[in-house]
């Protein structure tokens, strides 16, 4: 599943560490998410969307 986390993170000038701390996960999880190697749980997807001031639909591409 593709996502636009990196794009939104850059928009708000957040580092991977900042985002990881905001949503309460390890930095590796953000790295793997941005590389599309990990599909998050609905809770985590919601938390990331909230931290990046967007919606899950905007952030994740469910077409795959």
């Amino acid at each position, binding site marked *: 599943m593709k996502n636009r986390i990196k794009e939104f993170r850059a928009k708000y000038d957040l580092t991977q560490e900042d985002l990881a701390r905001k949503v309460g996960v390890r930095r590796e999880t953000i790295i793997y998410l941005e590389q599309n190697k*990990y599909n998050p749980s609905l809770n985590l997807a919601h938390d990331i969307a909230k931290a990046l001031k967007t919606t899950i639909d905007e952030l994740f591409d469910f077409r795959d």
Partner: protein
Amino acid sequence: MKNDKFRLIIIAILTITVLAIAVLYTFESIIMKEKNLGALIPFLIPVIIVVFMVFFIKRRYKDVKEGMPMEDERSKKVITQAAAKSFYFSLYWLLAISWFEPFFARVLFGGEKLDAGQTVGGGIAGMAIFFFIFWLYYDKKGKLI
């Protein structure tokens, strides 16, 4: 965060305890002069556990120091999937031990048959090795379900 630091300290203490037991066991084995490869199997299990723990603590310590969680949903999934796969593979490993028992008995212990302790020890060592390999695989590259 305080809880994570406490957990990390407990893991470190357990690792040191396992290492101390392994050293004592080896010392005892040397005194008993067990001159076969099989005598190393009970030593191999703690060594694998210690190597895994040192690797694990080193990686987690930095995160905990920086105020990040020691565990999250991905790391829990990695451990769950590595454990599931290692259990599955260890079933085949146990089958291999029973099928090739004369070979293992001759090569490792210089005997004809394995006793229960040797078989169980070999099975646990195999499981620990599989777990370590799968943990590394899923943590680095594996696509998680």
